[in-house]
Protein backbone atom coordinates (compact mmCIF):
# COMPACT_ATOMS: atom_id res chain seq x y z
CA UNK A 1 0.00 0.00 0.00
CA UNK A 2 1.28 3.47 -0.80
CA UNK A 3 2.02 6.17 1.73
CA UNK A 4 -0.43 9.04 1.76
CA UNK A 5 1.52 11.14 4.25
CA UNK A 6 5.22 11.08 5.02
CA UNK A 7 6.87 13.11 7.72
CA UNK A 8 10.59 13.18 7.04
CA UNK A 9 13.00 14.23 9.74
CA UNK A 10 10.68 16.91 11.10
CA UNK A 11 12.16 19.28 13.62
CA UNK A 12 9.99 21.79 15.47
CA UNK A 13 11.04 24.08 18.27
CA UNK A 14 9.31 26.97 20.01
CA UNK A 15 11.51 29.63 21.63
CA UNK A 16 14.55 27.41 21.24
CA UNK A 17 12.84 24.56 23.05
CA UNK A 18 12.73 21.40 20.96
CA UNK A 19 9.19 20.04 20.65
CA UNK A 20 9.64 17.48 17.86
CA UNK A 21 12.95 15.95 16.91
CA UNK A 22 13.93 13.59 14.10
CA UNK A 23 10.29 12.87 13.56
CA UNK A 24 9.86 10.25 10.83
CA UNK A 25 6.47 8.77 10.14
CA UNK A 26 4.89 7.11 7.13
CA UNK A 27 1.12 6.89 7.06
CA UNK A 28 -0.45 4.49 4.58
CA UNK A 29 -3.63 5.19 2.67
CA UNK A 30 -6.88 4.23 4.49
CA UNK A 31 -4.99 3.46 7.67
CA UNK A 32 -6.11 4.31 11.22
CA UNK A 33 -2.97 5.69 12.83
CA UNK A 34 -2.87 6.81 16.44
CA UNK A 35 -0.32 9.10 17.99
CA UNK A 36 -0.15 8.08 21.62
CA UNK A 37 1.80 9.68 24.41
CA UNK A 38 1.54 11.62 27.65
CA UNK A 39 0.30 15.20 27.66
CA UNK A 40 2.87 17.66 26.30
CA UNK A 41 4.83 15.11 24.27
CA UNK A 42 4.10 16.86 20.96
CA UNK A 43 1.08 15.00 19.58
CA UNK A 44 -0.90 18.13 18.74
CA UNK A 45 2.20 19.73 17.25
CA UNK A 46 2.69 16.78 14.89
CA UNK A 47 -0.94 17.00 13.74
CA UNK A 48 -0.55 20.74 13.22
CA UNK A 49 2.51 20.10 11.09
CA UNK A 50 0.40 17.83 8.87
CA UNK A 51 -2.47 20.35 8.75
CA UNK A 52 -0.07 23.22 8.02
CA UNK A 53 -0.50 25.29 11.17
CA UNK A 54 3.06 24.61 12.28
CA UNK A 55 6.04 25.29 10.03
CA UNK A 56 8.80 22.82 10.88
CA UNK A 57 12.29 24.36 11.11
CA UNK A 58 13.65 21.34 9.29
CA UNK A 59 12.30 18.31 7.49
CA UNK A 60 9.58 17.69 4.97
CA UNK A 61 5.90 16.88 4.90
CA UNK A 62 4.85 14.84 1.88
CA UNK A 63 1.28 14.29 0.73
CA UNK A 64 0.86 11.57 -1.88
CA UNK A 65 4.57 11.91 -2.58
CA UNK A 66 4.44 15.67 -3.16
CA UNK A 67 6.25 18.10 -0.86
CA UNK A 68 3.60 20.22 0.90
CA UNK A 69 5.84 21.60 3.65
CA UNK A 70 5.37 25.18 2.45
CA UNK A 71 1.70 24.84 1.47
CA UNK A 72 -0.66 26.94 3.65
CA UNK A 73 -3.41 25.06 5.58
CA UNK A 74 -6.28 26.09 3.32
CA UNK A 75 -4.62 24.48 0.32
CA UNK A 76 -4.06 21.09 1.95
CA UNK A 77 -6.42 18.20 1.34
CA UNK A 78 -6.62 17.23 4.98
CA UNK A 79 -9.25 18.28 7.50
CA UNK A 80 -9.10 18.48 11.24
CA UNK A 81 -11.43 17.72 14.13
CA UNK A 82 -10.10 20.15 16.72
CA UNK A 83 -9.47 19.32 20.33
CA UNK A 84 -12.23 21.56 21.66
CA UNK A 85 -14.44 21.30 18.53
CA UNK A 86 -13.89 24.95 17.42
CA UNK A 87 -17.42 25.20 16.04
CA UNK A 88 -18.65 28.50 14.61
CA UNK A 89 -20.94 29.72 17.37
CA UNK A 90 -22.59 32.30 15.09
CA UNK A 91 -23.83 29.61 12.68
CA UNK A 92 -26.37 26.85 13.21
CA UNK A 93 -25.57 23.17 12.72
CA UNK A 94 -26.37 23.24 8.99
CA UNK A 95 -24.16 26.26 8.28
CA UNK A 96 -21.32 24.84 10.35
CA UNK A 97 -21.28 21.69 8.27
CA UNK A 98 -21.85 23.62 5.03
CA UNK A 99 -18.90 25.95 5.69
CA UNK A 100 -16.33 24.11 3.59
CA UNK A 101 -18.76 23.74 0.69
CA UNK A 102 -19.67 27.43 0.76
CA UNK A 103 -15.98 28.32 0.62
CA UNK A 104 -15.57 26.19 -2.50
CA UNK A 105 -18.71 27.84 -3.98
CA UNK A 106 -20.61 24.57 -4.31
CA UNK A 107 -24.12 24.93 -5.81
CA UNK A 108 -26.87 25.33 -3.19
CA UNK A 109 -28.62 22.10 -4.15
CA UNK A 110 -25.48 20.04 -3.76
CA UNK A 111 -24.72 21.72 -0.43
CA UNK A 112 -28.13 20.63 0.88
CA UNK A 113 -27.54 17.05 -0.26
CA UNK A 114 -24.03 16.82 1.14
CA UNK A 115 -24.95 18.33 4.50
CA UNK A 116 -27.86 15.93 4.89
CA UNK A 117 -25.60 13.05 3.94
CA UNK A 118 -23.16 14.14 6.64
CA UNK A 119 -25.92 14.60 9.23
CA UNK A 120 -27.05 11.05 8.52
CA UNK A 121 -23.47 9.79 8.76
CA UNK A 122 -23.02 11.21 12.26
CA UNK A 123 -26.60 10.44 13.38
CA UNK A 124 -27.72 14.04 13.71
CA UNK A 125 -30.73 14.06 11.36
CA UNK A 126 -33.18 16.79 12.23
CA UNK A 127 -30.60 18.94 14.02
CA UNK A 128 -29.81 21.26 11.10
CA UNK A 129 -31.46 24.37 12.55
CA UNK A 130 -30.14 23.95 16.09
CA UNK A 131 -27.84 26.50 17.58
CA UNK A 132 -24.50 24.78 18.23
CA UNK A 133 -24.27 26.25 21.74
CA UNK A 134 -27.42 24.33 22.71
CA UNK A 135 -25.95 20.95 21.76
CA UNK A 136 -24.45 18.50 24.23
CA UNK A 137 -20.72 17.77 24.13
CA UNK A 138 -21.29 14.56 22.20
CA UNK A 139 -23.51 16.28 19.64
CA UNK A 140 -21.01 19.12 19.16
CA UNK A 141 -18.39 16.45 18.58
CA UNK A 142 -20.53 14.95 15.82
CA UNK A 143 -21.01 18.34 14.18
CA UNK A 144 -17.25 18.87 14.23
CA UNK A 145 -16.71 15.50 12.56
CA UNK A 146 -19.39 16.13 9.93
CA UNK A 147 -17.97 19.58 9.22
CA UNK A 148 -14.49 18.16 8.70
CA UNK A 149 -15.71 15.32 6.46
CA UNK A 150 -17.96 17.38 4.19
CA UNK A 151 -15.07 18.31 1.88
CA UNK A 152 -14.26 14.63 1.26
CA UNK A 153 -10.73 14.89 2.65
CA UNK A 154 -8.33 12.04 1.97
CA UNK A 155 -7.01 12.35 5.51
CA UNK A 156 -8.89 13.28 8.67
CA UNK A 157 -6.85 14.52 11.62
CA UNK A 158 -8.49 14.09 15.02
CA UNK A 159 -7.00 15.72 18.10
CA UNK A 160 -8.20 13.95 21.24
CA UNK A 161 -11.76 14.10 19.91
CA UNK A 162 -13.26 12.09 22.76
CA UNK A 163 -11.28 13.49 25.68
CA UNK A 164 -14.11 15.74 26.84
CA UNK A 165 -16.80 13.04 26.78
CA UNK A 166 -17.76 10.81 29.68
CA UNK A 167 -16.68 7.17 29.67
CA UNK A 168 -19.88 5.60 28.35
CA UNK A 169 -20.30 8.11 25.54
CA UNK A 170 -16.62 7.68 24.68
CA UNK A 171 -17.00 3.93 24.13
CA UNK A 172 -19.95 4.51 21.83
CA UNK A 173 -18.13 7.20 19.86
CA UNK A 174 -15.06 4.98 19.44
CA UNK A 175 -17.20 2.45 17.57
CA UNK A 176 -18.86 5.17 15.54
CA UNK A 177 -15.55 6.68 14.52
CA UNK A 178 -14.37 3.28 13.33
CA UNK A 179 -17.61 2.83 11.39
CA UNK A 180 -17.23 6.30 9.82
CA UNK A 181 -13.64 5.60 8.87
CA UNK A 182 -14.59 2.34 7.16
CA UNK A 183 -17.66 3.85 5.51
CA UNK A 184 -15.73 6.82 4.10
CA UNK A 185 -12.69 4.71 3.29
CA UNK A 186 -10.19 7.41 4.30
CA UNK A 187 -7.10 7.74 6.44
CA UNK A 188 -7.53 8.75 10.08
CA UNK A 189 -4.67 10.24 12.08
CA UNK A 190 -5.87 10.11 15.65
CA UNK A 191 -4.32 11.69 18.72
CA UNK A 192 -4.94 10.43 22.23
CA UNK A 193 -3.23 10.00 25.57
CA UNK A 194 -5.49 7.04 26.39
CA UNK A 195 -3.61 3.80 25.71
CA UNK A 196 -6.73 1.65 25.77
CA UNK A 197 -8.37 3.83 23.15
CA UNK A 198 -5.23 3.63 21.01
CA UNK A 199 -4.99 -0.15 21.26
CA UNK A 200 -8.66 -0.85 20.51
CA UNK A 201 -9.08 1.52 17.56
CA UNK A 202 -5.85 1.64 15.59
CA UNK A 203 -4.18 -0.23 12.77
CA UNK A 204 -0.91 1.40 13.76
CA UNK A 205 0.10 3.00 17.04
CA UNK A 206 2.88 5.58 17.30
CA UNK A 207 4.11 5.93 20.88
CA UNK A 208 5.71 9.29 21.62
CA UNK A 209 7.63 10.78 24.51
CA UNK A 210 9.20 14.23 24.74
CA UNK A 211 8.88 14.82 21.00
CA UNK A 212 10.59 11.57 20.05
CA UNK A 213 8.92 8.53 18.54
CA UNK A 214 9.49 5.57 20.87
CA UNK A 215 7.88 2.84 18.83
CA UNK A 216 5.69 2.36 15.78
CA UNK A 217 3.72 -0.84 15.39
CA UNK A 218 0.41 -2.67 15.45
CA UNK A 219 -1.41 -2.62 18.80
CA UNK A 220 -0.32 -6.27 19.35
CA UNK A 221 3.33 -5.43 18.65
CA UNK A 222 3.28 -2.48 20.95
CA UNK A 223 1.60 -4.39 23.74
CA UNK A 224 3.56 -7.62 23.46
CA UNK A 225 6.93 -6.36 22.24
CA UNK A 226 7.54 -2.91 23.75
CA UNK A 227 10.96 -1.67 22.71
CA UNK A 228 11.74 0.13 25.94
CA UNK A 229 10.57 0.48 29.54
CA UNK A 230 8.69 3.71 28.74
CA UNK A 231 6.51 2.01 26.13
CA UNK A 232 6.06 -1.06 28.32
CA UNK A 233 4.95 1.09 31.21
CA UNK A 234 2.78 3.46 29.18
CA UNK A 235 0.97 0.69 27.34
CA UNK A 236 -0.83 -1.02 30.17
CA UNK A 237 0.66 -2.07 33.45
CA UNK A 238 3.91 -4.00 33.55
CA UNK A 239 6.51 -5.41 35.81
CA UNK A 240 9.84 -4.10 34.54
CA UNK A 241 12.93 -5.40 36.30
CA UNK A 242 16.64 -5.81 35.59
CA UNK A 243 17.92 -9.16 34.46
CA UNK A 244 20.80 -10.85 32.67
CA UNK A 245 20.60 -12.54 29.31
CA UNK A 246 22.78 -15.59 30.01
CA UNK A 247 22.68 -16.84 26.45
CA UNK A 248 20.11 -17.08 23.66
CA UNK A 249 16.73 -18.22 25.01
CA UNK A 250 17.86 -18.14 28.67
CA UNK A 251 17.43 -15.19 31.02
CA UNK A 252 18.08 -14.74 34.73
CA UNK A 253 16.22 -12.40 37.07
CA UNK A 254 15.61 -12.41 40.82
CA UNK A 255 18.21 -15.14 41.08
CA UNK A 256 16.17 -17.57 38.97
CA UNK A 257 16.88 -18.80 35.44
CA UNK A 258 14.00 -18.74 32.97
CA UNK A 259 13.78 -20.08 29.46
CA UNK A 260 12.54 -17.37 27.08
CA UNK A 261 11.83 -16.82 23.38
CA UNK A 262 14.28 -13.97 22.78
CA UNK A 263 17.72 -14.27 21.27
CA UNK A 264 20.48 -12.19 19.79
CA UNK A 265 21.44 -10.10 22.81
CA UNK A 266 24.77 -11.88 23.38
CA UNK A 267 25.96 -13.73 26.48
CA UNK A 268 25.78 -12.35 30.05
CA UNK A 269 24.31 -9.05 28.91
CA UNK A 270 22.32 -6.85 31.29
CA UNK A 271 18.74 -6.38 30.02
CA UNK A 272 15.33 -5.19 31.14
CA UNK A 273 12.69 -7.85 31.61
CA UNK A 274 8.99 -7.09 31.11
CA UNK A 275 6.20 -9.27 32.43
CA UNK A 276 2.54 -8.20 32.29
CA UNK A 277 0.66 -8.53 35.62
CA UNK A 278 -1.90 -10.89 34.07
CA UNK A 279 0.82 -13.22 32.74
CA UNK A 280 2.02 -14.39 36.15
CA UNK A 281 0.29 -17.51 37.47
CA UNK A 282 0.01 -18.17 41.20
CA UNK A 283 1.27 -21.59 42.29
CA UNK A 284 2.33 -23.27 45.54
CA UNK A 285 5.85 -22.20 46.65
CA UNK A 286 7.30 -25.69 46.24
CA UNK A 287 6.13 -25.89 42.61
CA UNK A 288 8.09 -22.88 41.36
CA UNK A 289 11.61 -21.53 41.68
CA UNK A 290 10.47 -17.88 41.92
CA UNK A 291 8.90 -17.12 45.29
CA UNK A 292 7.26 -14.12 46.85
CA UNK A 293 5.16 -12.99 49.78
CA UNK A 294 1.78 -11.34 49.18
CA UNK A 295 1.79 -7.80 50.63
CA UNK A 296 -1.56 -6.33 49.59
CA UNK A 297 -4.69 -7.47 47.76
CA UNK A 298 -7.14 -5.15 46.05
CA UNK A 299 -10.32 -6.18 44.27
CA UNK A 300 -10.50 -4.46 40.85
CA UNK A 301 -13.90 -5.56 39.59
CA UNK A 302 -12.95 -8.40 37.24
CA UNK A 303 -9.74 -9.47 38.93
CA UNK A 304 -7.66 -9.08 42.05
CA UNK A 305 -4.51 -7.04 42.06
CA UNK A 306 -1.82 -8.39 44.37
CA UNK A 307 1.48 -6.81 45.25
CA UNK A 308 3.99 -9.60 45.84
CA UNK A 309 7.49 -9.10 47.25
CA UNK A 310 10.31 -11.36 46.00
CA UNK A 311 14.01 -10.97 46.84
CA UNK A 312 14.56 -7.55 45.15
CA UNK A 313 11.33 -6.70 43.36
CA UNK A 314 7.73 -5.86 44.17
CA UNK A 315 5.56 -7.65 41.60
CA UNK A 316 2.12 -6.62 40.44
CA UNK A 317 -0.04 -9.66 39.70
CA UNK A 318 -3.55 -9.73 38.26
CA UNK A 319 -5.50 -12.89 38.98
CA UNK A 320 -9.09 -14.02 39.34
CA UNK A 321 -8.15 -15.94 42.48
CA UNK A 322 -6.40 -14.38 45.45
CA UNK A 323 -4.18 -15.24 48.39
CA UNK A 324 -4.25 -13.64 51.83
CA UNK A 325 -1.55 -11.04 52.59
CA UNK A 326 1.41 -12.74 54.25
CA UNK A 327 1.03 -15.93 52.22
CA UNK A 328 4.13 -17.26 50.51
CA UNK A 329 3.46 -18.14 46.87
CA UNK A 330 5.27 -19.51 43.85
CA UNK A 331 5.11 -17.54 40.59
CA UNK A 332 4.92 -19.28 37.22
CA UNK A 333 5.92 -17.36 34.10
CA UNK A 334 5.96 -19.22 30.78
CA UNK A 335 8.65 -18.33 28.18
CA UNK A 336 6.16 -16.60 25.79
CA UNK A 337 5.22 -14.09 28.48
CA UNK A 338 8.77 -12.97 29.22
CA UNK A 339 9.72 -10.02 27.10
CA UNK A 340 13.38 -8.91 26.96
CA UNK A 341 14.43 -5.35 26.16
CA UNK A 342 17.95 -4.11 25.56
CA UNK A 343 19.09 -1.65 28.24
CA UNK A 344 18.89 1.90 26.97
CA UNK A 345 22.10 3.84 26.92
CA UNK A 346 22.20 6.04 29.98
CA UNK A 347 19.58 4.18 31.99
CA UNK A 348 21.81 2.07 34.18
CA UNK A 349 19.45 0.70 36.78
Amino acid sequence: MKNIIELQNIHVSFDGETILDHFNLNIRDKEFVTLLGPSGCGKTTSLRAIAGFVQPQAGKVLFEGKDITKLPPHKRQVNTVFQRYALFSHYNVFENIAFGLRISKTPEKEIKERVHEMLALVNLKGFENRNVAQLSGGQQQRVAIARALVNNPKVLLLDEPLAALDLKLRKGMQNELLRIQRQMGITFVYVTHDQEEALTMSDTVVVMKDGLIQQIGTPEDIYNEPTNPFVADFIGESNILPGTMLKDYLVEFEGVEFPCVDAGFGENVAVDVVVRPEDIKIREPEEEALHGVVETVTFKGVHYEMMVRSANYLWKIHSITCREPGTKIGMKIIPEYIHIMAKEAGTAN
Partner: protein
Amino acid sequence: MRRFIQKSYMGLVFGFLYLPIAYLIFFSFNSGKSKVIFSGFSFKNYVNLFQDEQIMQALLNTLIIAAISSVVATILGTMAAIGIQRLRKLPRNAIMNITYMPVLNPDIITGVSMMLFFSVLGISLGYGTVLLAHITFNIPYVILAISPKLRQMDVSVYEAAMDLGASPTVAFRKAILPQIMPGIISGFMMALTLSVDDFVVTFFLKGVEVETLATVIYTTTKTRINLSMNALCGVMVIVVLIILIIANLPAKQNAKKREE
Protein backbone atom coordinates in the same frame (compact mmCIF):
# COMPACT_ATOMS: atom_id res chain seq x y z
CA MET B 1 -41.05 59.10 55.07
CA ARG B 2 -38.34 57.04 53.37
CA ARG B 3 -40.33 57.06 50.15
CA PHE B 4 -40.70 60.80 50.44
CA ILE B 5 -36.93 61.28 50.75
CA GLN B 6 -36.30 58.95 47.86
CA LYS B 7 -38.80 60.79 45.75
CA SER B 8 -37.45 64.23 46.54
CA TYR B 9 -33.94 62.99 45.81
CA MET B 10 -35.04 61.83 42.38
CA GLY B 11 -36.82 65.12 41.94
CA LEU B 12 -33.66 67.07 42.74
CA VAL B 13 -31.54 65.02 40.36
CA PHE B 14 -33.97 65.38 37.51
CA GLY B 15 -34.46 69.02 38.36
CA PHE B 16 -30.79 69.85 38.13
CA LEU B 17 -30.30 67.71 35.06
CA TYR B 18 -33.31 68.53 32.99
CA LEU B 19 -34.69 71.85 34.22
CA PRO B 20 -31.95 73.90 32.55
CA ILE B 21 -32.46 71.99 29.31
CA ALA B 22 -36.23 72.41 29.52
CA TYR B 23 -35.72 76.10 30.18
CA LEU B 24 -33.39 76.37 27.20
CA ILE B 25 -35.82 74.65 24.86
CA PHE B 26 -38.78 76.60 26.22
CA PHE B 27 -37.13 79.89 25.29
CA SER B 28 -36.21 78.56 21.87
CA PHE B 29 -39.90 79.14 21.08
CA ASN B 30 -39.78 82.75 22.29
CA SER B 31 -40.96 85.24 19.67
CA GLY B 32 -39.04 88.00 21.40
CA LYS B 33 -35.29 88.43 21.71
CA SER B 34 -34.94 87.99 25.45
CA LYS B 35 -33.64 84.95 27.32
CA VAL B 36 -35.69 85.81 30.38
CA ILE B 37 -38.95 87.36 29.23
CA PHE B 38 -41.22 85.08 27.21
CA SER B 39 -43.15 87.34 24.85
CA GLY B 40 -44.99 84.78 22.74
CA PHE B 41 -44.79 81.46 20.96
CA SER B 42 -43.14 81.17 17.56
CA PHE B 43 -40.93 78.95 15.40
CA LYS B 44 -38.93 81.90 14.16
CA ASN B 45 -35.73 80.86 15.96
CA TYR B 46 -35.92 77.50 14.24
CA VAL B 47 -36.43 79.10 10.87
CA ASN B 48 -33.45 81.36 11.56
CA LEU B 49 -31.38 78.41 12.65
CA PHE B 50 -31.85 76.51 9.44
CA GLN B 51 -31.15 79.62 7.43
CA ASP B 52 -27.97 80.42 9.33
CA GLU B 53 -25.20 79.40 6.96
CA GLN B 54 -22.49 79.40 9.62
CA ILE B 55 -24.43 76.95 11.77
CA MET B 56 -25.35 74.73 8.84
CA GLN B 57 -21.70 74.64 7.79
CA ALA B 58 -20.69 73.76 11.36
CA LEU B 59 -23.28 70.98 11.44
CA LEU B 60 -21.94 69.60 8.18
CA ASN B 61 -18.36 69.80 9.48
CA THR B 62 -19.32 68.03 12.70
CA LEU B 63 -20.99 65.20 10.84
CA ILE B 64 -18.20 64.79 8.29
CA ILE B 65 -15.47 64.85 10.92
CA ALA B 66 -17.38 62.44 13.14
CA ALA B 67 -18.08 60.05 10.28
CA ILE B 68 -14.57 60.00 8.82
CA SER B 69 -12.74 59.93 12.14
CA SER B 70 -14.89 57.18 13.63
CA VAL B 71 -14.69 54.99 10.52
CA VAL B 72 -10.91 55.40 10.25
CA ALA B 73 -10.44 54.95 14.00
CA THR B 74 -12.59 51.82 13.96
CA ILE B 75 -10.56 50.26 11.16
CA LEU B 76 -7.18 51.20 12.66
CA GLY B 77 -8.33 50.32 16.18
CA THR B 78 -9.60 46.91 15.10
CA MET B 79 -6.32 46.11 13.39
CA ALA B 80 -4.37 47.37 16.39
CA ALA B 81 -6.48 45.35 18.83
CA ILE B 82 -5.88 42.17 16.81
CA GLY B 83 -2.16 42.89 16.61
CA ILE B 84 -1.95 43.56 20.34
CA GLN B 85 -3.88 40.37 21.12
CA ARG B 86 -1.30 38.32 19.23
CA LEU B 87 1.63 39.73 21.21
CA ARG B 88 3.17 37.94 24.13
CA LYS B 89 1.97 38.85 27.59
CA LEU B 90 4.62 41.39 28.56
CA PRO B 91 4.63 43.63 25.47
CA ARG B 92 0.87 43.25 25.31
CA ASN B 93 0.37 44.63 28.80
CA ALA B 94 2.83 47.42 28.07
CA ILE B 95 0.98 48.47 24.93
CA MET B 96 -2.42 48.22 26.60
CA ASN B 97 -1.20 50.59 29.31
CA ILE B 98 0.07 53.03 26.69
CA THR B 99 -3.35 52.75 25.05
CA TYR B 100 -5.04 53.72 28.30
CA MET B 101 -2.96 56.88 28.68
CA PRO B 102 -4.87 59.11 26.23
CA VAL B 103 -8.15 57.91 27.75
CA LEU B 104 -7.07 59.05 31.19
CA ASN B 105 -5.39 62.22 29.97
CA PRO B 106 -7.46 65.41 30.30
CA ASP B 107 -8.66 66.59 26.87
CA ILE B 108 -6.89 69.86 27.32
CA ILE B 109 -3.51 68.13 27.42
CA THR B 110 -4.32 66.17 24.28
CA GLY B 111 -5.43 69.39 22.59
CA VAL B 112 -2.53 71.59 23.61
CA SER B 113 0.14 68.96 23.00
CA MET B 114 -1.18 68.20 19.53
CA MET B 115 -1.42 71.86 18.67
CA LEU B 116 2.21 72.36 19.69
CA PHE B 117 3.24 69.23 17.85
CA PHE B 118 1.62 70.33 14.60
CA SER B 119 3.04 73.84 14.83
CA VAL B 120 6.54 72.44 15.44
CA LEU B 121 6.11 70.35 12.30
CA GLY B 122 4.91 73.43 10.47
CA ILE B 123 1.52 71.94 9.66
CA SER B 124 -1.14 74.66 9.54
CA LEU B 125 -4.21 74.05 11.67
CA GLY B 126 -7.49 73.30 9.95
CA TYR B 127 -9.72 70.49 8.78
CA GLY B 128 -6.86 68.01 8.47
CA THR B 129 -5.48 68.55 11.93
CA VAL B 130 -8.94 68.29 13.53
CA LEU B 131 -9.52 65.02 11.68
CA LEU B 132 -6.12 63.64 12.69
CA ALA B 133 -6.75 64.61 16.30
CA HIS B 134 -10.20 63.01 16.37
CA ILE B 135 -8.89 59.81 14.81
CA THR B 136 -6.07 59.75 17.35
CA PHE B 137 -8.21 60.20 20.44
CA ASN B 138 -10.83 57.75 19.13
CA ILE B 139 -8.48 54.83 18.47
CA PRO B 140 -7.88 53.89 22.13
CA TYR B 141 -11.62 53.70 22.79
CA VAL B 142 -12.07 51.37 19.84
CA ILE B 143 -9.19 49.19 21.03
CA LEU B 144 -10.61 49.08 24.53
CA ALA B 145 -14.04 48.11 23.20
CA ILE B 146 -12.72 45.28 21.02
CA SER B 147 -9.97 43.79 23.19
CA PRO B 148 -12.27 42.01 25.66
CA LYS B 149 -14.14 40.39 22.77
CA LEU B 150 -10.86 39.19 21.28
CA ARG B 151 -9.79 37.77 24.60
CA GLN B 152 -13.03 35.81 25.02
CA MET B 153 -12.88 34.65 21.43
CA ASP B 154 -12.03 31.10 20.54
CA VAL B 155 -8.96 31.44 18.28
CA SER B 156 -9.19 27.89 17.06
CA VAL B 157 -12.25 28.79 14.94
CA TYR B 158 -9.92 30.88 12.77
CA GLU B 159 -7.78 27.81 12.19
CA ALA B 160 -10.90 25.71 11.69
CA ALA B 161 -12.02 28.05 8.91
CA MET B 162 -8.64 27.84 7.16
CA ASP B 163 -8.62 24.10 7.65
CA LEU B 164 -11.90 23.98 5.71
CA GLY B 165 -10.37 25.85 2.80
CA ALA B 166 -10.82 29.52 3.67
CA SER B 167 -7.90 31.82 2.89
CA PRO B 168 -6.66 33.85 5.88
CA THR B 169 -8.72 36.88 4.77
CA VAL B 170 -11.90 34.89 4.28
CA ALA B 171 -11.30 33.06 7.56
CA PHE B 172 -10.97 36.42 9.31
CA ARG B 173 -14.17 37.71 7.75
CA LYS B 174 -16.22 34.58 8.37
CA ALA B 175 -14.86 33.30 11.67
CA ILE B 176 -13.36 36.20 13.61
CA LEU B 177 -15.31 39.26 12.50
CA PRO B 178 -18.75 37.95 13.53
CA GLN B 179 -17.41 37.14 16.98
CA ILE B 180 -15.91 40.58 17.62
CA MET B 181 -18.61 42.55 15.75
CA PRO B 182 -20.43 43.68 18.93
CA GLY B 183 -17.14 45.14 20.15
CA ILE B 184 -16.48 46.85 16.83
CA ILE B 185 -19.96 48.37 16.78
CA SER B 186 -19.77 49.65 20.32
CA GLY B 187 -16.28 51.02 19.63
CA PHE B 188 -17.59 52.77 16.52
CA MET B 189 -20.58 54.25 18.37
CA MET B 190 -18.30 55.45 21.13
CA ALA B 191 -15.96 57.07 18.60
CA LEU B 192 -18.89 58.73 16.85
CA THR B 193 -20.27 60.16 20.09
CA LEU B 194 -16.88 61.30 21.33
CA SER B 195 -16.18 63.07 18.06
CA VAL B 196 -19.54 64.86 17.96
CA ASP B 197 -19.17 65.74 21.63
CA ASP B 198 -15.65 67.03 21.50
CA PHE B 199 -15.06 70.67 22.15
CA VAL B 200 -11.67 71.07 23.83
CA VAL B 201 -9.45 69.19 21.35
CA THR B 202 -11.25 70.67 18.35
CA PHE B 203 -10.97 74.14 19.81
CA PHE B 204 -7.17 73.93 19.94
CA LEU B 205 -6.73 72.35 16.54
CA LYS B 206 -9.36 73.96 14.36
CA GLY B 207 -7.35 77.01 13.31
CA VAL B 208 -9.46 79.91 12.11
CA GLU B 209 -11.76 78.69 9.36
CA VAL B 210 -13.14 75.37 10.62
CA GLU B 211 -16.06 75.40 13.05
CA THR B 212 -17.99 72.47 14.49
CA LEU B 213 -21.29 72.69 16.35
CA ALA B 214 -19.54 72.66 19.70
CA THR B 215 -17.17 75.50 18.84
CA VAL B 216 -19.86 77.52 17.12
CA ILE B 217 -22.17 77.28 20.12
CA TYR B 218 -19.30 78.32 22.36
CA THR B 219 -18.28 81.38 20.36
CA THR B 220 -21.81 82.58 19.61
CA THR B 221 -23.20 82.29 23.12
CA LYS B 222 -20.12 84.00 24.52
CA THR B 223 -20.46 87.10 22.35
CA ARG B 224 -24.17 87.77 21.89
CA ILE B 225 -27.61 86.67 22.94
CA ASN B 226 -28.88 84.45 20.18
CA LEU B 227 -31.98 82.36 20.57
CA SER B 228 -31.01 80.29 17.50
CA MET B 229 -28.58 78.57 19.85
CA ASN B 230 -31.53 77.58 22.01
CA ALA B 231 -33.23 76.22 18.93
CA LEU B 232 -30.07 74.34 17.99
CA CYS B 233 -29.95 72.76 21.44
CA GLY B 234 -33.61 71.87 21.08
CA VAL B 235 -32.95 70.12 17.78
CA MET B 236 -29.98 68.25 19.25
CA VAL B 237 -31.97 67.05 22.27
CA ILE B 238 -34.75 65.81 20.04
CA VAL B 239 -32.31 64.01 17.73
CA VAL B 240 -30.66 62.30 20.70
CA LEU B 241 -34.08 61.32 22.03
CA ILE B 242 -35.04 59.76 18.70
CA ILE B 243 -31.74 57.88 18.51
CA LEU B 244 -32.26 56.57 22.04
CA ILE B 245 -35.75 55.36 21.23
CA ILE B 246 -34.61 53.66 18.04
CA ALA B 247 -31.65 52.07 19.80
CA ASN B 248 -33.95 50.63 22.45
CA LEU B 249 -36.63 49.37 20.10
CA PRO B 250 -34.91 46.23 18.77
CA ALA B 251 -33.85 45.23 22.26
CA LYS B 252 -37.45 45.33 23.42
CA GLN B 253 -38.68 43.44 20.39
CA ASN B 254 -36.05 40.77 20.91
CA ALA B 255 -36.99 40.50 24.56
CA LYS B 256 -40.62 40.02 23.54
CA LYS B 257 -39.66 37.35 21.02
CA ARG B 258 -37.72 35.49 23.66
CA GLU B 259 -40.64 35.60 26.06
CA GLU B 260 -42.97 34.06 23.50
